[in-house]
């Protein structure tokens, strides 16, 4: 009987082996990309009037702009049917720019720590190929460019969206980089770009489809300009980047696992941060905040709903906590009602 067999097999496996296997399944993600299903959005679900580079809405995804249109970027529920996704990232052009200046560009990117990617063996004859797969939908059909960027080197590949407003799965394989370098540290190791538009500075050369040093003109040759009409929208989800030459099914992670991966880079908290004090005069007070998980680097602190940052100093920070000290008027108990910590790349 099947149940008996399962019982017999389990009884021959040491408990710690089972735990290790379970743990391994969680942490050894095949997907290099974090939050590829766009499920986590600690910064909020929509940001309007975006014209410059910043992290908005969904975690880990940086919207990189240089004077190419104005955008509303949102976490959206328009997803490919029957694929298991619940959220996508949507770009909505709200001010068009049909004639980009040479240096204008717009792309979506994620930056990955080099210490997580040493298994790619960059710079050796055994360098691993990488395959990117993702779902896209847009009314703006034509050629789009996807780029991988490492320290001073990049490779770009084009893909075509031919059906307007239809979810399409794209798969692109990049050869391994046998000549590059990748620092084994918490710094930038690899970036993936999804170009949405670019001026001639990035489009006037020949698309660089093999790894090579940076020549701006070869980055995004052929890329359509998604910013050329306020009618334009672009959705993307299910982004996976994995070692190898074929795209496997998207790796869905439990929400808590996905969130924890994001918390290494950004932590939003809307719980009051109090700084207790016994003071009756202007003696400084101190408060500490410990992060849910160690962050990538000592983070930047931004207070959102309080102006008390004006007389605050961040006197100590680490990957584990930050200590604030503050002077203020008598009787106040300083606090921040909503704040975040960022150690994004």
């Amino acid at each position, binding site marked *: 009987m099947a149940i008996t067999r399962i019982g017999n097999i389990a009884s021959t496996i040491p408990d710690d082996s089972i735990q290790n296997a379970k743990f391994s399944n969680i942490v050894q993600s095949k997907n290099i990309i974090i939050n590829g299903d766009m499920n986590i959005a600690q910064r909020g679900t929509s940001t309007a009037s975006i014209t410059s580079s910043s992290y908005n809405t969904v975690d880990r995804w940086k919207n990189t702009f240089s004077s190419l249109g104005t955008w509303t970027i949102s976490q959206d529920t328009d997803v490919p049917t029957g694929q298991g996704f619940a959220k996508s990232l949507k770009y909505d052009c709200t001010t068009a720019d049909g004639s980009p200046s040479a240096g204008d560009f717009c792309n979506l990117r994620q930056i990955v720590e080099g210490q997580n990617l040493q298994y790619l063996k960059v710079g050796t004859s055994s360098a691993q190929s990488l395959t990117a797969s993702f779902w896209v939908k847009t009314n703006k059909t034509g050629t789009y460019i996807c780029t991988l960027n490492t320290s001073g080197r990049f490779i770009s590949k084009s893909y075509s969206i031919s059906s307007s407003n239809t979810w399409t799965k794209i798969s692109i394989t990049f050869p391994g980089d046998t000549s590059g370098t990748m620092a084994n540290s918490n710094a930038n190791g690899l970036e993936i770009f999804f170009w949405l538009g670019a001026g001639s500075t990035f489009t006037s050369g020949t698309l660089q489809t093999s790894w090579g040093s940076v020549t701006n003109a070869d980055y995004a040759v052929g890329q359509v300009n998604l910013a050329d009409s306020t009618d334009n929208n672009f959705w993307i989800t299910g982004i996976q980047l994995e070692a190898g030459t074929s795209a496997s099914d998207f790796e869905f992670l439990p929400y808590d696992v996905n969130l924890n991966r994001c918390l290494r880079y950004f932590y939003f908290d809307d719980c009051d941060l109090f700084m207790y004090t016994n003071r009756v005069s202007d003696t400084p007070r101190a408060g500490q905040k410990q992060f849910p998980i160690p962050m990538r680097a000592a983070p930047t602190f931004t207070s959102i709903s309080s102006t008390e940052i004006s007389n605050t100093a*961040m006197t100590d920070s680490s990957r584990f906590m930050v200590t604030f000290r503050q002077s203020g008027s008598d009787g106040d108990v300083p606090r921040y009602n909503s704040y975040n910590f960022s150690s994004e790349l």
Partner: protein
Amino acid sequence: MINTVEKIYFDGDFVCYKTTYQDSSVSLVPLKTDNTDYQAIQEWSAIEGNNIIDPGA
């Protein structure tokens, strides 16, 4: 986009930067070289005309 950067002192020690961005948000940036906001401040201050405000200890 950075608007202003000011050195913050506490008990006489330079402890962090206070950065004001063009969207009026304000952040405290640690003096850690692997923090990308710290790196951005160094790049910003290297541009002629951009000066870090130093109120002194």
